[in-house]
């Protein structure tokens, strides 16, 4: 992977100037490369990783992992059904996976009822959905490589040879 991507994946706010200095390139060249990645859809968007456990109103949000069994359709396989499912705003992630079920969703809702209602009223009745299993998330420890914990203290002594 291009080192520009490696840097941005860790810190999306790193400036072109900084990256240029780190990689011994011209800022304009970094800017052009990033523009190209965005155009090609390699870089989709930039966002903050938020520890919602620390925010009172957001903490009351409920997240669930939902396993979905579906019947694939002729010609389009799972894609058409998946599209009908991931288009719901409640679905924050959607993966097609191997194993005993087909889709894995991450669904977010205001409270337990909201998520249950989504499953009962929107997801389960879909024509090609054969069954669902809902797991409510209790605690997030790590997300996208980031450990959700207060800043770690520095354990090194401040000066040494």
């Amino acid at each position: 992977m291009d080192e520009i991507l490696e840097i941005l994946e860790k810190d999306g706010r790193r400036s072109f100037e900084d990256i240029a200095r780190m990689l011994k390139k011209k800022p304009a060249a970094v800017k052009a490369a990033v523009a190209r990645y965005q155009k090609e859809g390699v870089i989709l968007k930039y966002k903050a990783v938020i520890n919602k456990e620390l925010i009172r109103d957001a903490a009351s949000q409920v997240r669930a992992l939902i396993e979905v069994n579906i019947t694939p359709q002729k010609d389009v396989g799972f894609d058409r059904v998946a599209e009908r499912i991931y288009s719901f705003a409640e679905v924050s992630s959607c993966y097609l996976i191997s194993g005993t079920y087909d889709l894995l969703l991450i669904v977010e809702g205001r409270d337990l009822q909201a998520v249950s209602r989504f499953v009962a009223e929107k997801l389960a009745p879909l024509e090609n959905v054969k069954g669902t299993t809902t797991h409510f998330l209790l605690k997030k420890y790590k997300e996208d490589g980031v450990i959700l914990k207060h800043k770690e203290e520095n354990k090194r002594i401040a000066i040494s040879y």
Partner: protein
Amino acid sequence: MSVTKKVKNLQPSGIREFFDLVLGMKEVISLGVGEPDFVTPWQIREAGIYSLEEGFTSYTSNKGLYKLRLGIARYLKNRWGLEYSPEEEILITVGASEGMDLALRTLINPKDKVLIPVPSYVSYGPLTELAAGEPVYIDTTPYGFKLTPELLEKYAAKKPKALILNYPANPTGVSYTARELGEINRILLKHKILCITDEIYGELTYDFQHTPFATLKGAKGNTVYLDGFSKSYAMTGWRVGFAAGPEDIISAMNKIHQYTIMCVSITSQMAACEALQAGRRSVEEMKREYRRRREFVIAELNRMGLECHMPQGAFYAFPSIKSSGMSSIDFCQKLLKDQKVAVVPGTAFTPMAEGYVRISYASSINSLKEALNRIGAFLEKHRPVKK
């Protein structure tokens, strides 16, 4: 109680007070740290923990766990094409530091001269003196901090017993290409000077492939090769290193080691085994990160008028601060008090490095950026008045 003359006469660390000052201050951004800012990769830590759970709490053989020596022998073979017998030619030491002490005590007779290119890591001179040898410092400052063949030829005339060569070097980051090392080796062999190499930063070489000294033609039988896990695997606190060399020398070093140390902590040795098994990826990742920080820091330092050569390895920049008009220790003390940024005066490593400071870039880019901004502000404020 009276302390021996030998210990009393050991050079006291001239900057102890400055170190104490740093340690006593809060919220300092420290670029004065001689160790990685990464913690040991989890799989390595986990292996240490698991070994404790399994009850590995005993002594190991003096030379170290055979499994670890075998792992090191394989690493040396696969990585550098070097063949050392795990039975006879490898000794596990408490960091490369112990290896250096053992090598000097094993090889140096009273009054033997030991060549030490400076600026250098702080222990070489004192350890030579403790071994009753005579350190002969070679000032490399005018030569871009490099030991040149001409310099070495000149000092070879003093009939030294050994040369201590550390590359990539702490504190300068300087390293040597295979060709440069070949020249040094040729001169050492010609004058029958032994080579003790401290290659602890070897895996952190950025611009070219690191060349272990022992791989040079005819060098293996003339070299004690010291390395360890501290820097490349971010394992400083575990204290595991190794010495590789001719059987008779390793066996003699082991004699001292068995009486003073007995063996390296078994937990650390078990973790080091894991580092060799699976640590490669972490090493490459850390190395890329260091290289990016290096580019960043060196460009910034030069931009603000602190002239700095491009270090080829380790994680140190060694800029000249002469343009500030201050002495090294003055610069560091004022910078600490004014801006709460800690760097190490060059004079901590040799009096000949007056006018330089060591900046460690084993810190996050954000800390480095903030620290460099503060150094910039500091330079603005203390700009020498032109007459």
